[in-house]
């Protein structure tokens, strides 16, 4: 597992870190939720990734791409197989049970279930490209994959999602989701 490279030495103080955290934590939790399909898990890995960013604050460069660094660390934490067990135990010891998370909307359940059935690399590429508005080249840089591989992941991921979501309430042909719910 390759660690994200650290930006050139800059360093941040508490005020700068807090501003960066406040501005980006919600966005990153949303992105990790789309990647993992587990809201409590996404919260925890994002918090842990920010804690690691503070631990390495001497190298943190707010003018570089700190959000991408935190996102990458959070993603790697989420996919670590050991983590599911360790997090539950460690968090329970440190903070008590995780906060109650309300159940998602029914049409979100459908989408989350479909996303979960994508291989991890495809899911990550789809979320980075379509949610984070990153170009294929940027996705390749963040994931450490060749551009061609990212294109394959995107193509396959979209095709699988289309198949899984056909004839569900998210299928526009079904016409079951009122436009008013689209925001």
């Amino acid at each position, binding site marked *: *597992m*390759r*660690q994200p490279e650290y930006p050139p030495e800059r360093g941040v103080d*508490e005020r700068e*870190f*807090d501003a960066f*955290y*406040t501005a980006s*934590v*919600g*966005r990153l*939790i*949303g*992105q990790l*939720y*789309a990647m993992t399909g587990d*809201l409590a898990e*996404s*919260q925890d890995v*994002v*918090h*842990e990734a*920010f*804690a*690691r*960013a*503070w*631990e390495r*604050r001497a190298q943190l460069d707010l003018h570089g791409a700190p959000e991408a660094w935190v996102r990458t660390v959070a993603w790697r934490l989420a996919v*670590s*197989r*050991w*983590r599911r*067990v*360790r997090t539950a135990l460690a968090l329970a010891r440190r903070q008590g049970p995780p*906060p109650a*998370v*309300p159940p*998602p*909307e029914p049409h*979100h359940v459908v*989408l*989350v279930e479909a996303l979960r059935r994508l291989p991890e690399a495809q899911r990550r590429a*789809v*979320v980075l490209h*379509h*949610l984070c*508005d990153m170009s294929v080249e940027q996705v390749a840089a963040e994931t450490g994959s060749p551009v061609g591989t990212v294109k394959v992941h995107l193509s396959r991921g*979209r095709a699988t*999602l*289309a198949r899984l*979501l056909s004839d569900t309430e*998210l*299928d*526009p042909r079904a016409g079951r989701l009122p436009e008013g719910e*689209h*925001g």
Partner: protein
Amino acid sequence: MADETELGWRLAELAESGRSHTVPLAAHRVRARGEQRLRRRRTTLVTAVASLAAALVAGGLALAGSAHGPQQPTATPAPAPPPFVRPSPGPGEEYASELGYVYGAVAEGDTVRVTVRQLRGTIRGTASPTGVVHALTLPRATLVETRRLSGGHPADMQLGQLVERLADGPRWTFWIDYDNEGRVESLREAG
């Protein structure tokens, strides 16, 4: 999903839903967690340096003693190896660490039994045995931070995944992290 635009829109809606249903920790609590990790890392380094210094002093004394000529053979039996005492974290510290070879791994249901040959602190391969050898029985899911064991890249593994690699004699050295109740929290590949 009709097209890529709609996919992006659906994902954004999902992400916003997740975001709106969460209350992130306060920034100061996240910083506190980062500080805790930093203290742990520094403690490990300080422990290693102190142990190395002690080993160098002991080695120097032994060399000075041998310079005075060969020791007379003695009939006194070799002292029994010192007993194992679980390290305990100092005040304000989350973990205490033990350095040692971890080997002889045997899976036993949901646990793995390993033998630990304790070493004095090491920097750049200057470890020396303390004489303490003990066994640990740990959950298969015990976190193991690896580097060489995972092909040169840092990785997080479970002990259960490493049973075969650690089954033989002493070869791989680890820092073993004990919490304040004497439980092993994680192993970290040393060196």
